[in-house]
């Protein structure tokens, strides 16, 4: 019996595939699966006890889906751990088990009765090494710089990284693959949400926020959605900056408790002149995406990312003139 679990879907899936293939090599010809979200827990023992006419050994693949592991699951799973499996193989696959489930009695019973494989996420510092080893297993060499590029382009998403490596392997390169060759070969497959981009700017990381911002433009996001999301953040910030009790002001503006700390941090980083410039830029961007003013709303919104991160724009330091994409919105009388 095997128990494979972890937060990294690619590694969990590959571990399960390896077990299934090894079982097939040993002559386990029959395979049946039990899905915790569609099958009835009562029928779990039957899945194990049913015998095949065509094969003497079989593999039962039990897939535990998060959300279906309620109280009713506990007893069948404990029974499964205790049951006599004969020559059959039971493979329990659990993606994304939360820490609470890992402390339950059924999990301990399963882990105690089986070979446990915990496929946790690869830490950032080991990711480069992981990518290079994976490339080696696919039969080509990847330089460290190239591995870093893949890691950056996929934002540490292992499935996406593995796909990139598979794509390169298709070309069967003879010499080590370096950063320069890769630049053309792989695409930017990251995807972000607007919320993450705004949080990043509020956290003071201008470079990363800008990268997410331009990436959002290439995906399906619309500039007006981003204007609306910024408005939800900047208006409470403005109220908090004007108030002697910023914390209370944010609470009364109905900012959720978990985000107040983030906004207070942004207020400290972002003085009043930058905040006012960001609000001006928001008004311009709003007018630009409605077609009421000239200019590209994406460039104006990019300025907001920079300003909110607490960085002055070039024209604010006096180095350049105010750029032409910041016209004042036309006033309607």
């Amino acid at each position, binding site marked *: 019996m095997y128990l494979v679990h972890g937060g990294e879907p690619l590694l969990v899936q590959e571990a399960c595939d390896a077990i299934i293939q090894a079982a097939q090599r040993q002559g386990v010809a029959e395979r049946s699966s039990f899905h915790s979200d569609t099958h009835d827990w*009562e029928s779990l023992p039957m899945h194990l006890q049913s*015998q095949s006419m065509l094969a003497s050994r079989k593999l039962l693949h039990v897939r535990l889906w998060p959300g279906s592991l309620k109280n009713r699951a506990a007893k069948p799973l404990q029974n499964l751990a205790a049951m006599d499996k004969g020559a059959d193989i039971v493979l329990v696959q659990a993606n994304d088990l939360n820490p609470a489930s890992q402390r339950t009695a059924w999990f301990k019973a399963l882990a105690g009765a089986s070979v446990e494989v915990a496929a946790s996420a690869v830490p950032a510092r080991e990711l480069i090494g992981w990518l290079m080893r994976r490339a080696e297993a696919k039969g080509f060499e990847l330089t460290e710089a190239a591995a870093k590029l893949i890691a950056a382009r996929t934002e540490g998403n292992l499935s996406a990284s593995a796909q990139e490596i598979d794509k390169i392997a298709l070309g069967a390169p003879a010499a080590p693959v370096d950063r320069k060759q890769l630049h053309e070969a792989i695409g930017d497959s990251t995807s972000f949400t607007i919320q993450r981009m705004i949080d990043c700017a509020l956290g003071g990381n201008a470079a990363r926020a800008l990268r997410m911002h331009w990436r959002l433009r290439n995906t399906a996001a619309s500039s007006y959605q981003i204007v609306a999301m910024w408005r939800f953040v900047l208006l409470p910030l403005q109220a908090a900056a004007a108030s002697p009790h910023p914390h209370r002001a944010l609470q009364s503006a109905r900012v959720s408790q978990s985000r107040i700390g983030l906004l207070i941090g942004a207020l400290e980083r972002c003085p009043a002149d930058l905040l006012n410039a960001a609000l001006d830029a928001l008004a311009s961007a709003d007018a630009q995406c409605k077609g009421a003013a000239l200019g590209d709303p994406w460039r104006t919104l990019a300025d907001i990312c920079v300003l909110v991160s607490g960085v002055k724009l070039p024209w604010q330091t006096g180095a350049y003139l105010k750029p032409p994409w910041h016209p004042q919105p036309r006033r309607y009388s």
Partner: protein
Amino acid sequence: MKIDFTKEALMPFLGHNNEVSSTHQNFTKQIHLQASGSELVMTTTDGTMWLRSCVDGITVQEQGSVSLVVQDLFKIVRGLPSEKVVSLGQIPTEGEAGGLTMRIQYDSVEYDLNGDTGETFPGAKELKVPVCSVNVGELRTLLKHTYYAMAQKDVRHYLNGMKLEIAKDGDGIVAVAMDGHRMAFAEIAREGEDDDSDQQDLHWHFLLPSKSIQTLMNLLEGEDDEAVLEIFREDENVKDISGGDQISMKIGKTVLVTRLIDADFPEFRHIIPKQDPEHSFDVDNKMLLENIQRVALLSNTSPDNPTSVHFMSSSSDRLRMICNRDNTKEGAKTELDITWTSGPGELRIRYNIQYIKDALSAIPEAQDVLVRFSVFGNDLASRLEQVAPDPSPASLRAFCLVMPLRN
């Protein structure tokens, strides 16, 4: 195109055509109608099989062809008053090139359906080389005894169908279906043929997909027992028919063209137990089925979520059946009379309840049908077969093998 027809002339054929069609593709939703001479040819397909029926008893006013959505046509024809002569004809339309509108009209009722000229409808291949012919009544009996054991959507695709073996000299037919846990076998043999005939060359082998079997059963339902089903193939030169090929089956004026499953069916003859059973008993089929349904009431018996039934007996002539909900004390039990035919004694065995129900339901309903239940051990398949009255036709041998559950 313009024809006059009655509901009675079209309806039986249209029903079969409606069942063949599927919603995967545009052309699989359509029925192709071709009127020529004094008959109408209707064709539907789901991409893997074609059903073509010739309908007579209609009047062709104007020759031509058209493709319509089969479900719409079926609904309209089903709702027609009986014996009413109805006209189906093209009406002139403006605009849209390629499309046309057909009007179905009787009394003051008019239905307009959009269709096309049917030039792009993929017709079936014309298979002309005769292979063999089978008696419809016999084939129907065989299919009824075996169809329930076909697997549905199994990854082993060769189990999602039925194997037919037809002796080249017309001496017998075998039908087998299995899903890995049970197997249904039915055979009609003449001239005292020996069972273990591994002489593959003497038989035609067909592995038909389960949907073709279902369609074939529907087609056979309305036919006369003495009618003959003819099987054709494409090429004279090929020595044997293998998977991937198409065959066509012709009953009267209806032709079913179907592909065969491109794989080998498991060696089913090796699975049939040859030794004497450890225990065997005779029991009334109707009583056993009723009792099983009674004890199964408390448990959920969908194919995905099976439940089990315990068969228990000591040496007395009573069989006890117990069905428990797992992990609870809830459950049901019942007892009924049996007659031991060999090895009376301690019996404790457990089955998937659905498998036993299916096997018993396949035996034709009649008064006082006795089934023999033979148990060969806890890790070998048990056999269920009818012993009295003698099966009809007399040369029929049918049984079901069911693997017990591990204790």
